[in-house]
């Protein structure tokens, strides 16, 4: 798709997303939109490294990125994000401190990004964005809590099935080891659980 068309389409999505939280006129949004910038990365590129301060809040326009921690030389994936979702190091970005995690692209990625300084500027210049910011943070909090809750409250099998049902294309787009790590499932167990996806397709047929 033409870059310009994609950009316009995305700004429209962002406009609607914002209006979901606050009243915002087209003129007001047009005043904010120049503060966004487009950033492009190849696949398997580290967008943020450990020790760097995260300067950008990103919305993914195209591609997939993940966030992970290094735990005793092993990677632990804590976020997998696709088109329309946000990714940044919450701690490093908001506290402007060195990051303890890595953000890396899986596919080539196009971000719609806003820098830390520009976000602060927008809060000052357009005070009604205070509410917008609060609502977006609230939504992030709720999602994070729900994920934590599922990690503790669901069995491995339930976590696997629920995630695969809600994200059917991820198995094709993301290496299995990242999915397994994100779901906190051993790679061997993950492979074994995959047969459940085939079973699910055949079971309803029998019922009919």
């Amino acid at each position: 798709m033409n870059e310009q068309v994609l950009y316009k389409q995305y700004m429209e999505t962002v406009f609607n997303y914002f209006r979901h939280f606050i009243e915002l006129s087209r003129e007001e949004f047009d005043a904010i939109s120049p503060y966004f910038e487009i950033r492009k990365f190849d696949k398997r590129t580290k967008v943020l490294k450990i020790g760097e301060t995260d300067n950008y809040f990103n919305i993914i326009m195209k591609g997939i990125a993940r966030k992970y921690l290094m735990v005793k030389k092993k990677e632990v994936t804590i976020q997998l994000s696709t088109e329309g979702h946000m990714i940044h190091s919450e701690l490093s970005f908001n506290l402007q401190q060195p990051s303890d995690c890595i953000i890396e692209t899986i596919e080539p990625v196009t971000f719609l990004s806003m820098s830390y300084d520009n976000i602060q500027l927008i809060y000052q210049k357009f005070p009604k964005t205070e509410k917008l910011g609060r609502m977006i943070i609230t939504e992030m909090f709720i999602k994070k809590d729900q994920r934590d809750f599922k990690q503790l409250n669901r069995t491995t099998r339930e976590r696997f099935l629920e995630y695969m049902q809600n994200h059917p294309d991820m198995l094709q787009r993301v290496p299995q080891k990242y999915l397994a790590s994100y779901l906190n499932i051993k790679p061997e167990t993950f492979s074994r659980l995959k047969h459940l996806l085939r079973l699910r397709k055949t079971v309803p047929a029998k019922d009919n």
Partner: protein
Amino acid sequence: MQNLYEYINRFTNVTEQEFEQISRMLETVHCEKKHILTHRGQVEKYLYIIRKGLVRKFFYKNKEEMITQLAKEDDLVCSSVSFLSQQPSEYIVETLEPCSLLAISYDNLQRLYATGYHMERMGRLITLDWLLQKEAWEHERLQHDPRERFIRFMNENGDFVQRVQQKYLASYLNMKPETFSRYKHLLRN
């Protein structure tokens, strides 16, 4: 009230007038220990600030209690997702000691936000602080094995851990009570 004033000013400088406005919206709650502030399935109506006492937040995994928060003086506590979304709570909030709490209702908080951008800003920064605490705790849990987590937690929360039953501390650190007991010798060395 001094503590609350300091707490809010960590995020944004409020005027005396604004602080009075906030204070007027707070209710004082006294309750015994083992009092359930929020039941499972109930919509969380209040956000509490602890003036005195201890509170825990937990849910049942089958029949096992899983503690996700242990809150003490000056901490905020409530069934946060239920409070923010006004959906039924998955969690139970219960006092562990007799408590003196300040409470602000969801409706009053919305009224406060509606008074101006400055209150919105305060709300944004406090909600962000909640989010960052959650994120930091997730990283802590993932980056350290149970043994390290035990040592770090016990060293950073000296007085507090004396007040909480071991089985609750073990649950909060997501380890079996036996493992918790076994680790205790690490503190003496």
